[in-house]
């Protein structure tokens, strides 16, 4: 069946470092992917998305890379800040319902 998974459950970085969060997906027919940030007690917040006809997309301090050959997705956060501390989920959109991975907790220390 469909599944979206993450390689690392927790990532600890120093403030100012770059962070990379990885995600593997299993449905090769997936054509839309989203990264969400979830802070404690809140709902998921959209960060960035990418469609399958792209390899890379950049936002403000964030970049998403898509490697369809190995079914891998990554989120890069530049100059990580304490406010980036949260759980990050990748999600695959299949006919509008989202299939989420289990999440990676990002801890940013000053």
């Amino acid at each position, binding site marked *: 069946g469909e599944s979206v998974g993450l390689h690392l459950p927790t990532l600890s970085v120093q403030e100012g470092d770059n962070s990379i969060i990885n995600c593997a997906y299993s449905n090769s027919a997936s054509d839309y992917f989203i990264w969400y940030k979830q802070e404690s007690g*809140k*709902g998921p917040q959209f960060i960035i*998305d990418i469609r399958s006809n792209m390899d890379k997309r950049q936002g403000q301090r964030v970049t998403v890379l898509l490697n369809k050959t190995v079914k891998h997705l990554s989120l890069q956060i530049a100059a990580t800040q304490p406010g980036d501390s949260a759980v990050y989920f990748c999600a695959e959109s299949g006919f*509008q319902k*989202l299939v989420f*991975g*289990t*999440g990676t907790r990002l801890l940013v220390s000053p």
Partner: protein
Amino acid sequence: GEEVAQTPKHLVRGEGQKAKLYCAPIKGHSYVFWYQQVLKNEFKFLISFQNENVFDETGMPKERFSAKCLPNSPCSLEIQATKLEDSAVYFCASSQAYQEDEQYFGPGTRLTVT
């Protein structure tokens, strides 16, 4: 409104009692989704609506769960005869278009079944 609103924020029910959760999607959004998040881990899709019509209900435990989106009313998710394993945070999301469109999430309702 500009945000998805969910009420109540917290709900405590004894096992076997009914629970009803509400969601007001962003004005102008045609699609509403319900997800269940257990233990702050992955989300489970429950059901989606296109306006007041059920679009996809493949995730719904049909024996006890039901949902509605009626015109001019908040959408609702109802659980009859709650069980301990229903304890979770229930999120509602809405989107404007059908495919490849951002889903905006509400703050969630935390249901605790005792």
